[in-house]
C-alpha cells in the first residue's frame, strides 16, 4: 500500500472515530477497536513529556483496558451517568498534523494533533481541549482497528467542567 493511500485510509478512520464520539454512538465507537487487549488513556496534566511514563508510574487522568473501556461505554449509556445526563456535552473532535506513521507488520502507529471543543448547556462558553494522540492500530481481517489511543492534553488543570466524562 502506498504511503498516500495508507494516509488516506487512516484519515477516513479518524474522521469516523471522531464522528462516533461526537454523536455519542458509543457502541459503534467501541466497534472500531481491535479484538483482544487494548489501551485507552488520557495522560497526566502538567507533566512534561508525559508520554515517556506509563500509567503505572504517574497518575494518569484515565487508563482503560478492554474491560474498563467496555464498562465505561456501558456506564456512559445510562441515564444515571449524571455527569452526562440528561444533557450531554456536545463535543467536536478535530484531528490535524497526522505524522510519524510507522508500519510494522500488521500494526500502524502514528501521532496526530487533536483539538476537541466541548459545549455544555449548563456551562457558559466553549471549553477547548488541545493535545495530541499516539495511536496504535492493527489490521484485523483486512480492516484497521484501534488497539491503543493515548491522549496527552496541553492543560494544567481540568476546568469548565473539571471532569473527563466525555469520550476524548
Amino acid at each position, binding site marked *: 500500500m502506498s504511503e498516500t493511500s495508507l494516509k488516506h485510509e487512516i484519515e477516513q478512520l479518524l474522521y469516523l472515530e471522531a464522528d462516533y464520539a461526537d454523536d455519542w454512538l458509543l457502541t459503534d465507537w467501541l466497534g472500531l477497536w481491535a479484538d483482544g487487549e487494548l489501551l485507552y488513556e*488520557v495522560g*497526566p*496534566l*502538567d*507533566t512534561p513529556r508525559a508520554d515517556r*511514563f506509563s*500509567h*503505572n*508510574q*504517574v*497518575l*494518569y*487522568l*484515565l*487508563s482503560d*483496558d478492554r*474491560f*474498563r473501556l467496555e*464498562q*465505561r461505554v*456501558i*456506564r456512559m449509556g*445510562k441515564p*444515571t*451517568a*449524571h*455527569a*452526562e445526563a440528561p444533557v450531554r456535552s456536545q463535543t467536536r473532535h478535530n484531528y490535524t498534523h497526522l505524522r510519524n506513521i510507522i508500519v510494522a507488520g500488521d500494526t500502524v502507529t502514528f501521532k496526530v494533533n487533536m483539538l476537541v471543543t466541548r459545549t455544555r448547556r*449548563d*456551562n457558559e462558553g466553549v471549553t477547548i481541549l488541545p493535545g495530541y494522540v499516539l495511536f496504535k492500530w492493527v489490521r484485523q481481517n483486512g480492516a484497521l482497528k484501534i488497539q491503543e489511543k493515548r491522549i496527552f492534553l496541553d492543560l*494544567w*488543570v*481540568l*476546568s*469548565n*467542567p*473539571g*471532569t*473527563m*466524562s466525555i469520550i476524548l
Partner: protein
Amino acid sequence: MSERAVVINRIAKYESRYLQHDPQNHVFRVHRDAYASPEVFEEEKQKILYKSWIVLGHETEIANPGDFVTRRVIDRELIFNRDSSGTVNVFFNSCMHRGPAICKHKEGKANVFVCPYHGWVYKNDGYLASAGSKKADAGYPAAYLERGEGAVRLQRIKNVAQRAGFYFVNFDDNAGPLDDYLQGAGARLDRMALQTTAGFEMIAGVHEYDISANYKLLCENSYDGYHLMQTHATYLDYVTQILKGSNLDPKLGGIVMTLGNGHGAFEIPVLSGRPVAQWLPHWGEEARVLLEEKRNEVIGRLGEELGANVCDMNSNMVIFPNSVINDQQTILARTIIPLSHNRMRVRAWTVAPKDEHPKLREIRMENILSFLGPGGFATPDDVSMLEWAQTGYETTNVKWNDFSKGITPEENTQNSTAVYDDEMQMRAYWLQWDKMMSRT
C-alpha cells in the same frame, strides 16, 4: 443568637445566622448563604480558613535537603522546602524587595532562590545572600546580608507541623499545636500509616480540577455515605461486574464518626479490592498470593481486629475546614483551594507504601483510576451534583439546606459514631464552622 435549655441532658435548641439546630424536633438546617454569599466567604477566610491547620503536602515531597515544591494554600502562594541544614520551611513565595515570586518551578532541588526582577538571591533557609551583585549589596545596610536582627529573610510561616507524614500549615501565628487541633483525626492519620512499616512515597502526578461550587460541598460529599447508592449507581453496577466470580459480597454499610473540632469520617467496607489488602479475581493468581502475604503481614503485626480494619475498611476523613484524606483504593489527599464562594480547585494526590510490590502498585494505579479522579466512574457524577446544588442556591429563593438525617435529642456530635448514611459528621462540621463564624 438565642439559646434555651429544654430538657436536662438534652441539647438545647440553638439558632444563629447560619444554623437552625433543634434536636428536640429532629431538625438541623444550614443557611445557603454559607455556600452562596461572597461576603460570607470573605468573612470565613478571616475567621476560619486563615485560623485553621490545613494540609499542605507530604514529607516525601521534601525528603532530601534542598528539595522544594511551590504550592497554593487557600489564596496564599508558598514555597515548602527542606533547607541545606535539614530544616523544613514554608515561605511566602514573594521577593522581600519588590514582590515577584522567587520560584516559578513547581518542584525541584535548589540551594538558592533568585528573584528574576532585580536578582536578589536567597539561600534555601530564606536568608538573603545577595542583592544581585557586589555593587548592589553595597547599596544596602550590611545587616541585610547577615543573620542578625537586621537580616532580610523570606517571610516564613511560623506554624508548620506534621502528623503521620502529612504536613499542615496554619497562617495564624497564635494557633495552638497541630495535635490539639486534630483531636481524633490525628489517630485516624496514624491508622493509615499502619499499612506499612516501610513508610510511604508520593506517586508522581496530580489530579487537578475545578468545580463550580463552594468548597464545603466537596467536604460534605467526601464522607457522605447517604449519596452513594443514588449518585454512584453506575459505579455500583461496575463493582457488581468486577466482583463476578468471587465470593465477596460487600454491602454498603459501616459507620460515620465525629472526631472533635469539626473533623469527621466515614468507615465503610471496601467495595473494590485494594492493595492493602483485599484481592479481586480479575487481578489473577500472582496478585492473590501477594495480597495474602500482605494481609498476613498486616494482621500478624496489628492483630486480627485492627489488622482487618486496616485492610477491609475505607475511611474518608474531612479535617475541618477543607482537607480531605481518603483511605480507599489508595491513600488520596484532596486539598481544596477555595477560589471564590462558588468555585474551588481540587488538588488530589496519592501516597503508597514504599515497599509495595510492583504488581500491587499496578493494581493500585488501576484501581485509583476506575473510581477516583475526573476521568473515573464516580467523581464526575459527584462534581455534577455539587455544581447543581450550587446552582440551586444561586437561582432560587430557598434558604436552608437540611442535615437532619439521624438526629436525636441527645446527640453528642463531639466524639461519637452513627450509621454510615447518617449526617451526624456534617452536623459536627457545621457546628464548628458556626462557632468560629460567631466569634467577633
